[in-house]
């Protein structure tokens, strides 16, 4: 059974999963970091919003892991998630800079 090139297969799973494991994690940290900056978290442990930001890691990271199989190849998964990280972290750094 050979799939046409436009069809998804589960063969290149290692590349996709490793991309979601590493870059999905860093993207989740960036997203929760943006939330923390925007909602004005002062202390990650004792502030309720700081703890909520920590909880948000679970759905985000497992979301990346669950949906990474939609990338066609492992290489594409790494490239796309790298771009996502670049955008999110640029936004994070810019926002931190603006907020002083």
């Amino acid at each position: 059974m050979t799939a046409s090139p436009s069809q998804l297969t589960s063969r290149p799973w290692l590349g996709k999963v490793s991309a979601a494991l590493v870059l999905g994690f860093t993207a989740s940290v960036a997203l929760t970091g943006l939330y923390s900056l925007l909602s004005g978290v002062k202390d990650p442990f004792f502030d309720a919003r700081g703890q909520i930001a920590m909880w948000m890691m679970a759905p985000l990271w497992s979301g990346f892991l669950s949906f990474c199989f939609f990338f066609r190849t492992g290489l594409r998964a790494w490239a796309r998630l790298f771009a996502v990280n670049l955008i999110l972290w640029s936004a994070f750094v810019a926002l931190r800079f603006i907020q002083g």
Partner: protein
Amino acid sequence: MAIRTDIIRVYKDVHGWVGICSGIALFIAFYAGALTMFEDVIQRWASPPPALAAAPSLERSPELIAKVLEAHPEAARSFDVHVALGPEQPARLSWTVGDAEHGPASTFYASLDTDGALQVAEQGPSGVAQWIDVLHQQVGLPFPHEIAMPIMGVVALLYAMALVSGVIILLPSLIKDLFAVRIGRNVKRMWLDIHNVLGLFSLPFHIVMALSAIVFAFHDQFYMAQGAVAPPPAREARAGGSPAPEARAALSPAEIVARLQRQAPGFEPLTLGFQKGPRGESVRVTGRDTRYPMRGATFGVAVVDPYSGAIKSSDYMPGLQSAGFAVLSSFFALHFGNFGGPLVQWSYFLLGLGGAFLFYTGNLLWIESRRRRERKAGPVAQSRSTRVLAGLTVCSSLGCVAGISVTLAAAKILPLFGAATTGWHQILYYAPFLAMTAWAVHRGAARSSAPLMRAAALACLAVPAASALALIGIGWNHGGATWWIDITAVAGAVLLFYLAPRAAQRAAAAPKDSVWSAEASAQAA
């Protein structure tokens, strides 16, 4: 709903592999977790009548505190005064030496005898309930906490992936399959229908469990990663201890309870934790208010000033939290099922057992479809790995059921030998678990499942049998809610005895190339 078939195919693979990698661990976590819904009742069932003299009243506790601190000054750093007493918490005062989480810790219990002299004992309530809880948290792994928790976290991530992929592959046939459980000749179809219905209807419960388990496993790592990039916290002075302790007289425990009840009428204090730290003194009051979701497994926490009785921090206090902390408490409460009383407890118990069954059926389906694929590829004999996996699935599940029953029943017998320690409870869980699993892998799933079901049923019966020993003067029964432990164990045994002949029938009737065929297992062994 239409989804491209190649996507369905990919997610079927994903669902199968993440399921088979996490299924056995999840079965153990859910079975043990269902039991922890009644952790305090189990602890009462398993705890011997207290050896100490009857506890002094809460009003007399200042005398007890003074005598303990005189004889054991090391207790001053941190000790607990218990408001609610029972066999599961027999002493008015206790303190722990050593770090409970990261090393050997010993807890001491104190009382006053009739002459008012101090009594101290190290023999406290049974540790078996706590051990079942640890088994649940560590998905059955016999490793130190620091090693077991990240592995549990990986299992939880696989579990989350299994939920997403399971929903994706079910979506196209959702309407058709939703209420259909086709019981009949096609056994695989029946198992698949049961798996789908069970999974779909308990999906919200499973989403809650998967996400909270990921957080419980990785919160340190998450905080660390977030803290590394966050701006340095603008720290205000946290609600610390009260300064200048000698200027004012500390309140008595009874007075603290009275003042707390005036401030929070629905909050039922269970334990007052007196702590002396570098920032001064504070009292950490754990208590219950079942009208609200609670942060702890069975309790919320109020931090109280020991000199004025005023609540200093209600962040973790049911009903008095800010909106943000209430949201967080609801995450915890949805995992622990600690709101709404017995109805929710029993629902969670059944959902937990249902979850365990979901993973069991999932593994069976994986093994069946693997058999079909292997048959297509040529060889009719079962591959060794499929046979081993079938044995592992069936019998680690039954081994877990049997092991927990044996170690629980032992709680009433171990004190006879002066061996009521967590170490013995661990041995008495892992011994039947490993023995049954090894035997099953050796003999094959088909030939071992029926005998092992009967063995697990007998293990369940050991629980009421241990209670019955009280009739001949061995052990104890505390009555009340603890009878439910014995009743539930009998119900479990009846169910397993009922299923055993059916498993035997299946082994006799299954196609010869199936792992469920007794004949095939006999040839392979």
